[in-house]
């Protein structure tokens, strides 16, 4: 039992709840309230307009490319960082966190310096080969990849460390090739780390504004380069508040749906595998089964 009295437990709980409410729930709630304040038509118009739909699909495209790539890269990198030793490992490990450390606007500028059609490293060469990166979709995808890169790696690494190599070695002694071992043993063991990383990366990629804003050039319209966050800002700047709130809600709902989806999956699968605290029933056999506490 906790040594805390009833009163101090309630006190702590209230502090946590008030903090969350004041700083998170009230602002998000206000968006919902304001969007639907004057009925449903204005916000619905905003997101079903040609420009709004274009922004929506552009966002889905960026997320749809960035997140799978970062998932694949993230799992491979986590495996390399946890299971192998090599020179420069610490450096690579530190580099993974760069997107967390650097301001998204700076990331946008950095991409601009590398890929801009003029005065850049190889933007000019790409342009001559018919690929425009900056002020165009490829640049936005690159920016989205950059900002959402660390999540899967950082979620998977601790799980890999925790499970150790026992299960993988056991699979190998049973005849499984490295490829079979990965698919049948490693991946199922790290799946919640991967899932959580994907959810965080998706949420980050959906909402990215700064880096995408710099490389996209904020060209509005159906042929433009506005993702949903840029569209929200654009509507806001043009005093179309209902439109801005409407688009903002779509973003919020997408992110919340991803979070809920994960929770649901996790709960279903956890209950199928039996909770950690479940006690076994005495069964047949020569032994009286005894719960064993593991160190």
């Amino acid at each position, binding site marked *: 039992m906790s040594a805390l009295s009833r009163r101090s437990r309630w006190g702590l709980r209230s502090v946590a709840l008030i903090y969350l409410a004041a700083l998170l729930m009230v602002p998000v709630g206000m968006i919902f309230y304001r969007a639907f304040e004057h009925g449903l038509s204005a916000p619905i118009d905003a997101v079903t307009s040609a420009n709004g739909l274009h922004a929506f699909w552009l966002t889905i495209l960026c997320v749809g490319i960035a997140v799978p790539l970062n998932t694949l890269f993230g799992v491979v990198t986590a495996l390399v960082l946890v299971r192998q030793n090599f020179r420069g490992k610490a450096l690579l490990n530190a580099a993974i966190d760069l997107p967390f450390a650097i301001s998204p606007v700076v990331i946008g500028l950095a991409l601009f310096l590398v890929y801009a059609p003029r005065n850049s490293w190889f933007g000019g060469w790409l342009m001559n080969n018919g690929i425009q990166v900056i002020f165009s979709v490829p640049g936005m995808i690159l920016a989205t990849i950059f900002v959402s890169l660390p999540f899967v790696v950082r979620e998977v690494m601790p799980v890999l460390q925790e499970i150790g190599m026992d299960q993988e070695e056991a699979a190998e*002694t049973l005849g499984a090739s490295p490829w079979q071992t990965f698919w049948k043993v490693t991946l199922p063991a790290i799946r919640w780390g991967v899932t959580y990383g994907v959810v965080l990366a998706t949420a980050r990629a959906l909402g990215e504004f700064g880096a995408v804003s710099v490389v996209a050039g904020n060209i509005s319209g159906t042929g433009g380069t506005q993702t949903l966050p840029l569209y929200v800002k654009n509507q806001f700047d043009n005093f179309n508040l209902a439109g801005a709130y409407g688009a903002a809600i779509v973003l919020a709902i997408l992110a919340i749906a991803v979070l809920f989806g994960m929770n649901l999956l996790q709960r279903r699968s956890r209950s199928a595998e*039996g909770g950690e605290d479940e006690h076994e029933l005495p069964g047949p056999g020569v032994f009286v089964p005894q719960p064993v506490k593991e160190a």
Partner: protein
Amino acid sequence: MAISVKNVTKRFGDFVALDDVSIDVPDGGLTALLGPSGSGKSTLLRVIAGLEQPDSGQVLISGEDNTGTRVQDRNVGFVFQHYAAFKHMTVFDNIAFGLRIKGEGSGTIRERVKQLIELVHLKGFERRYPNQLSGGQRQRMALARALAVEPRVLLLDEPFGALDAKVREELRTWLRRLHDDVHVTTIFVTHDQEEAMDVAEQIIVMNDGKVEQSGGPRDLYEDPASEFVMSFVGPAHRLGDAWVRPHDVDIRHEPNGQTIEAMIQRIVHLGFEVRVELTLTDGEQFSVQLTRDEVEQLELSEGQIVFVRPRSTRVFAPGGRGSKVTNKPEVA
């Protein structure tokens, strides 16, 4: 299948885990690798399994050089200290894993898994997940999983190390019986000398990456080859240059010229057996093992001054084999 390890050396950086180790394990035998932690016993087991590559030397299974053979192709069963259960699979799927990798048909798999589940007494647990099992059950599942692919040799790395004392003892007896049924050449690693003596036919004692001695449980106890084996296999105390077992000591109330003076520090009753803890005049401590009756006859009590005399001691020449000294029976 007989296992033969020839002159294997394995280093991890500067640390020499195995230093020119050679062992022979007979076909169908149950052999224990016994040693303290860091003695290289687990590394040796992993080298035999192919989970570690030796820097030099050879591993022969059934006379065939397997040194360079991949783990997957070695066909060895391996059981880990912490079970290494596939947590996302049921007991059935865990045991079936190796058979599925081999591409056996589902009928064969069902039949074979059923047999194994009966063998390890897990009937009724097929649909359970590992975290719904006790430690002992998990380890039996792991054993069934290793046996499923009909391995040429069975290797167990501290298989009972994570279990509590009672379960450990039950599993020990059970492993012994299982081996009588299955007869697969088995090597198990342990740091517990009692466990090794209880289960194994042959014990290989390791220390500092080297083999100290190998032989039957009785040989090791009666005829230890080094001070290390003397002190590690069974209890032993040092008295001057000689080593003595705690049950090889007489206690009396009067000195007789051959005895050493000591004070009884503590008398510990362990059921039939009683441990008498003594302090010698030079401050050195050692204990003597007596029966309950002997203690009563001698009327020993804590704080008493007594005189002790070893019945038999063992002296080890530096680097050489020990020689036994039996003291003449006392003439009263």
